[in-house]
């Protein structure tokens, strides 16, 4: 594509116009798209924009549209650039938390593959166009189509949104005589939504986990992307945090997902067999029949039934992705004793078009009944099973318009691209929970001036057409929207509302979705000796996350595989078939076949193969490899997604109710291709080898004795010692503690070491962190938060290897253990040591980051003081001083130091991790590390200093829990707490006192500042302390 006016993107000073847009008016004024300012250099302020202090962040409350849930986010902007997304604490849905996908929205905004101008397909080639040209072309086509009298057959496929836009869109379509648009969400669990509507009168009730004593999930992965995962996680973690009367959790399904790994018990039923178990619990049918259908032993079912009967009340959830999904979810609803709170259902999932409607539309296209088609924010060419044959049906449509931001598979089939604005650049609203409107305001001016909000484009198009112009009098969508918001968008209401990001009331009602035509259900593939389970990748979703390097680099919470696809197979089956990790398998169904590396996984039934969705973006147009420099449009969903992994949807029959995660009775066969590959994974050993890194304790044990017994296996001769929390612990006995005090026993020179000017007045600090493993679900939101806050480069892209032997295999650097995750989430298995199948194994998640040891082994070995101990107990890394001996990393028992093997931060290199404009996401408070230096978690020292400076400016001390680190802020299960262990007012100090507290590798005397609280297991029935105390 031709580059827009030199150099692409928005100039800094143009951003400054929006700054200070705390009030709607100011923002509105700024949101008229002035052309790019023709200047190449940065100029200091002559007249500084209102309310703007350079280097001080401005925060905008807005909306996340990475999935349909519609969480509220706070966008932190600095000098006009959004640099960080965090949850909006005011928002009823996510209450300040934000998942990895939400945070990665930033990389959608700054994605280097975004369309920079409208594009027109002439012949088979694409050319950049001006907006006038593009809009005229569309208007003219609409005219012609109307002329032919077939405009009514037009179809608009829009990404599912709640809020006013759907209504606006329908009214626009209606004004042209077109039927209402299809609100498409390929991730939605349609079966569950239908059943919920019947059972609870809401498409997605707010589950009442707080009151449950037992949680049973029939394949409902409510922690990894089923419905709205963030609120689920918040509630689940809260429930589990009530250690003693926390609900026990049983997961029933063929594959142990992230949710399954968080369960206390896994019952591995056959795909589709869940219904039988549910019915058995309902008293319909006996255990043997259920056992027949589900492949679960009658004994287990009996025990389940007893427990279900005894433990009251029980919350029962079910996923509706399977063939009998609707029945299953209905059965679960019947079983569910904990009624969801009626008032506050999650409304953002209302009005999603059924897949049957989508497929019906596709069939209409195939038969040439569709004269014009619009696609926005959804990618059916990829996300519909290949057997739906969307591509050739779509080709039959005479004129196809895409409003996509990215060059994806569907857009490539269109004739006209009118690139949309990102959520963070445009106006909008959503109704995530009943009675609350979440406002979506621009956090910044568009990154590319060649992009426009679809709504505004539609208005512009309408204005070209005398017939409909009258119905769109408003200048732009913002004006249209404000009129319809409660309070009529008056300045004062909006000012107040935009500050919070939410507004009480209800969005403009949209026309009801069309009634579902009869479902088309092609026969599911029944050949092959394995069940096929395809599931939504928690990080990539239905694939829309695949073009964001943060999400590609985020290890799958369960398998810890990244930058690739894989097929999960149970060790037992693997040994039977002589398959090893990394063998490339061909998975075949009647619908199609894919080639993916085998991954041996304990948590899948021996008769089941599980394959994740989200990868395998491809483009017929371009097969040439991207070398990190190529400037052409990166078709196939951009440079980061193309040719990574395989698309499991190719295996699926087009199904009437195919939600993204399909746990159907589809059968498949596998065969070894004989090829081998290294599975791209961050996992070293999945076992703790009794080293007590992630420790757990049985809830009974806590009941048994108030003071819990020590389980740590110490080397013989190592004297057992009582855990000393807080300041009393060695954790605080660091430089600041002893050497800092004016009365130090140490030689005189050290008195008031770190503050020679006033030794006496030194405030004693010890920054510390607790991680509650009873809360942590392993969702990995903290990892992405850390990448985003600390400018951590992603290193897995295929072109980021050495120059000479670049292998072009995605994740090559990571196969060499070179990932840079300052905070990594380790997942250890307990039990099931022998390769044989058992439902009885446990997974422990533990976030591992720099422990900021009091006796840091890394410090004394550095020859140049590049790492040393700060007065407030931080273990500091000085990048500019580092010469790269890497001795510190060798000497770190926790292995949390990461080395810059290449110039990831140097724009002139192929390894560059932030191609323009991705570098705009960089946090100005954190330096980008150069080649050849060591880096590691800094406890977000930039946030610490910011807080201290703010306090100093306001002539006060830093208040307790005044701020927190990025990982703690993001954590949707509130497992991470950060604070000053030297000050009793901070909540971290109280948590450190918890009886479950322990240090990792305490026997090494490192005196870590990170204190973990043991995971709490809820074994079935009465279990002796000994059994429960697995370690």
């Amino acid at each position: 594509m031709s580059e827009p006016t030199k150099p692409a993107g928005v100039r800094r000073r143009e951003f400054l116009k929006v700054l200070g847009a705390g009030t709607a008016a100011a923002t509105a004024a700024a949101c008229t798209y002035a052309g790019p300012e023709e200047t190449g250099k940065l100029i200091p302020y002559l007249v500084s924009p209102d309310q703007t202090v350079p280097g001080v962040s401005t925060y905008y409350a807005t909306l996340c549209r990475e999935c349909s849930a519609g969480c509220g986010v706070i966008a932190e902007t600095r000098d006009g650039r959004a640099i960080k997304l965090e949850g909006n604490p005011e928002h009823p849905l996510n209450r300040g938390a934000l998942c990895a996908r939400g945070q990665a929205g930033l990389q959608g905004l700054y994605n280097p593959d975004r369309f920079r101008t409208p594009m027109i397909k002439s012949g088979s080639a694409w050319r950049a166009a001006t907006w006038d040209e593009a809009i005229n072309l569309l208007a003219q086509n609409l005219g012609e189509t109307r002329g032919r009298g077939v405009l009514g057959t037009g179809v608009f496929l829009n990404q599912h949104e709640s809020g006013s836009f759907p209504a606006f869109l329908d009214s626009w379509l209606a004004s042209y005589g077109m039927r209402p648009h299809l609100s498409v969400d390929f991730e939605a669990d349609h079966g569950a939504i239908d059943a919920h509507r019947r059972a609870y009168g809401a498409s997605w009730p707010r589950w009442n986990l707080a009151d449950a004593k037992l949680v049973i999930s029939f394949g409902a992965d409510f922690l990894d992307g089923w419905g709205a995962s963030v609120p689920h996680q918040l509630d689940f973690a809260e429930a589990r945090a009530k250690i003693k009367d926390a609900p026990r959790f049983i997961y029933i399904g063929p594959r142990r997902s992230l949710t399954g790994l968080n369960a206390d018990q896994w019952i591995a039923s056959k795909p589709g067999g869940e219904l039988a178990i549910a019915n058995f619990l309902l008293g319909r049918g006996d255990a043997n029949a259920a056992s027949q259908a589900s492949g679960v032993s009658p004994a287990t079912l009996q025990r389940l039934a007893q427990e279900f009967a005894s433990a009251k009340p029980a919350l029962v959830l079910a996923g509706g992705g399977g063939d009998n999904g609707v029945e299953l979810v209905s059965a679960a609803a019947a079983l569910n004793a904990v009624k969801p709170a009626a008032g506050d259902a999650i409304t953002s999932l209302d009005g999603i078009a059924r897949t049957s409607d989508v497929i019906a539309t596709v069939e209409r296209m195939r038969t040439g009944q569709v004269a014009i088609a619009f696609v926005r924010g959804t990618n059916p060419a990829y996300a519909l099973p290949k057997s739906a044959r969307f591509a050739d049906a779509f080709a039959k449509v005479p004129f196809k318009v895409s409003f996509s931001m990215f060059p994806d598979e569907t857009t490539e089939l269109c004739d006209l691209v009118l690139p949309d604005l990102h959520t963070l650049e445009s106006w909008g609203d959503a109704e995530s929970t009943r009675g609350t409107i979440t406002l979506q305001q621009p956090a910044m001016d568009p990154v590319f001036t060649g992009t426009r909000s679809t709504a505004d484009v539609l208005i512009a198009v309408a204005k070209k057409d005398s017939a409909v112009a009258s119905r769109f009098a408003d200048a732009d969508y913002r004006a249209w929207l404000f009129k319809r918001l409660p309070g009529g968008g008056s300045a004062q209401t909006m000012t107040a509302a935009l500050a919070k990001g939410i507004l009480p009331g209800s969005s403009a009602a949209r026309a009801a979705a069309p009634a579902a035509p009869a479902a088309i259900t092609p026969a599911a593939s029944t050949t092959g000796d394995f069940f096929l389970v395809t599931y939504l990748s928690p990080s990539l979703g239905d694939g829309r996350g695949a073009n964001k390097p943060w999400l590609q680099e985020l290890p799958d919470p369960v398998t810890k595989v990244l930058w690739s696809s894989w097929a999960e197979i149970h060790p037992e089956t693997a040994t039977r078939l002589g398959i090893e990790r990394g063998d490339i398998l061909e998975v075949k169904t009647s619908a199609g076949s894919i080639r993916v590396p085998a991954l041996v996984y304990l948590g899948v039934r021996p008769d089941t193969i599980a394959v994740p969705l989200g990868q395998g973006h491809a483009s017929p147009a371009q097969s040439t490899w991207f070398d990190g420099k190529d400037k052409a449009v990166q078709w196939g969903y951009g440079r980061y997604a193309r040719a990574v992994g395989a698309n499991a949807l190719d295996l699926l029959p087009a199904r009437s109710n195919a939600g993204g995660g399909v746990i159907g009775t589809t059968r498949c066969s596998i065969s070894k291709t004989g090829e081998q590959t290294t599975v791209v994974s961050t996992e070293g050993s999945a076992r703790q080898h009794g080293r007590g890194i992630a420790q757990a304790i049985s809830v009974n044990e806590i009941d048994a004795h108030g003071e819990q017994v020590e389980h740590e296996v110490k080397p013989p001769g190592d004297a057992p010692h009582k855990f000393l929390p807080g300041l009393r612990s060695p954790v605080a006995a660091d430089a600041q503690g002893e050497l800092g005090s004016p009365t130090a026993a140490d030689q005189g020179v050290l008195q008031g070491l770190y503050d020679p000017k006033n030794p006496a007045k030194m405030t004693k600090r010890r920054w510390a962190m607790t991680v509650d493993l009873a809360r942590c679900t392993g969702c990995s939101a903290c990892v992405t938060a850390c990448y985003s806050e600390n400018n951590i480069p992603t290193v897995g892209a295929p072109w980021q290897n050495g120059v000479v032997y670049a292998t072009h295999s995605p994740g090559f650097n990571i196969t060499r253990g070179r990932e840079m995750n300052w905070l990594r989430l380790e997942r250890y298995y307990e039990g099931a040591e022998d390769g044989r199948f058992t439902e009885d194994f446990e997974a422990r998640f533990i976030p591992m980051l720099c422990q900021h040891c009091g006796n840091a082994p890394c410090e004394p070995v550095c020859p140049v003081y590049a790492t040393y101990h700060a007065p407030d107990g931080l273990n500091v890394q000085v990048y500019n001083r580092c010469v790269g001996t890497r001795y510190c990393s060798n000497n770190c028992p926790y292995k949390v130091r990461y080395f810059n093997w290449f110039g990831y931060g140097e724009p002139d290199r192929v390894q560059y991790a932030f191609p323009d404009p991705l570098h705009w996401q960089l946090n100005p408070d954190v330096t980008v590390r150069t080649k050849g230096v060591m880096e590691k978690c800094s406890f977000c020292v930039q946030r610490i200093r910011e807080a201290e400076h703010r306090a100093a400016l306001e002539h006060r001390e830093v208040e307790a829990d005044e701020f927190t680190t990025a990982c703690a802020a993001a954590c949707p299960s509130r497992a991470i707490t950060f604070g000053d262990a030297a000050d009793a007012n901070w909540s971290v100090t109280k948590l450190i006192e918890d009886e479950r507290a322990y240090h990792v590798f305490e026997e090494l005397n490192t005196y870590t500042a990170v204190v973990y609280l043991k995971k709490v297991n809820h074994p079935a029935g009465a279990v002796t302390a000994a059994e429960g105390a697995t370690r």
Partner: protein
Amino acid sequence: MATTASQYPLNGQRPNIPSAAVRLPAVADYEQVDREIIGTLRPTLGWFTLLGIAVLCLLIGITAWMYQIYSGLGVAGYHPPVMWGVYIITFVFWIGIGHAGTLISAILYLFRAGFRTSIYRCAEAMTVFAVMTAGLFPILHLGRPWKFFWLIPYPNWRLIWPQFKSPLVWDVFAILTYLTVSSTFLYIGLIPDIAVLRDRETNPVRKAIYATLSLGWRNSDREWRHFTRAYLFLAAFSTPLVLSVHSVVSFDFAMALVPGWHTTVFPPYFVAGAIFSGLGMVFTIIIPIRKFFRLQHYVTLNDLDAAAKMCLFTSMVVGLAYLTEFQVAWMSGNKFEQEYFWNRVFGQWAWAAWIMLLCNMVLPLSLFSQRLRRNPSWLFILSLFINLGMWFERFVIVVPSLSHEYEPWQWGSYAPTFVDYSILLGSFGWFFMWFLLFIKQLPVMAISELKEVVPPKRKHPHPDEFEHSRDEGIAHPFITGEHELPGGAH
């Protein structure tokens, strides 16, 4: 020499080799020493070929390094948690090599071990060049090699100094000291010999150069008096220095808490290993030299025999250290240590560990046989195995320990890339380039010291010397190794 041999027939009985008082029976007088040693300085075609090969290897290494500096350490085979690899291994390897020289020249000098005389010059030169080679590796293993001088305490306006508690700074001091002292030692010993070259040289240019290098040395009694004294003190200094340097190198590992590194046996273990590897390299070098330079009657089988005994001894010390490590791991009850050592011998790194054990523990035991001790060909082959084994010893110390540390989640593997190998090759090129240049410009044996052990001319032949030679039958081929003298030599 045939003549001297026939002069003193062996009276049937086997001579007492080690205490042969006349060390060089086949050397008649001072002039012969001058003639034969200086004779070796004539460049030959073979020499030029070898030099060419060495320089080629060096160029390959330099290219690889430039590539690595440009694109970053990522091009080498590092695989976290294995943050140190071939470069550190090779660094320790060369430092080890660099120990035999000073050991032989200094310690054996103090102990008045006779067999040192003929081999110490080679060994010393080897030391200097080996240390020059080793010194490069800490620099080229850095992430930012252009900042290596930050490890040196130089006055700077920011008043930032190195962190003197870091073993790496200890290294800097130890190695620079060692390089300075050993090269000084070499040069001081060379001065009288350069004077000899000066006086024999006819080519005016070379003569001028030698004259300058010899600092106008004129063999006066006063010069000799101070010379012998100074030499003694240098030896006295070098002896503890040798021991300290490799101890310090071993601290790089012993001071870390890495399982397999953090052990007190390392300093003696490393010193023994260093001497062992050094002797190995001495054999690798001296045996071809004595053959191609026809100096078998200077480096006699006695000398090789004695050196071989030392080699055997150090090999057994090293072997003991290996076993001690296992025993300590076993008795410590420390599961990290135990699992690591299990992984070392039976786990993913078994192949390397067994190469090490075979080459350093098993093969050298052959030296218990006197026949093999006195068989130069076998010594040469064995020495190659020793060099290999000692490189792998360092591999086994560095890589398996790092790849199998405390945190199971971060257990990894390691595989060098062509960059590592090229730089390793380059280091050999660099070393042998210097050594080859040395042996054709300067005497490979200490002329003036050889003269010390050659009986001077006398009006009245010295009774003791005569008696000795008679009794010991020192001219027997068994001692001189005359049987391997190429026909027509001298």
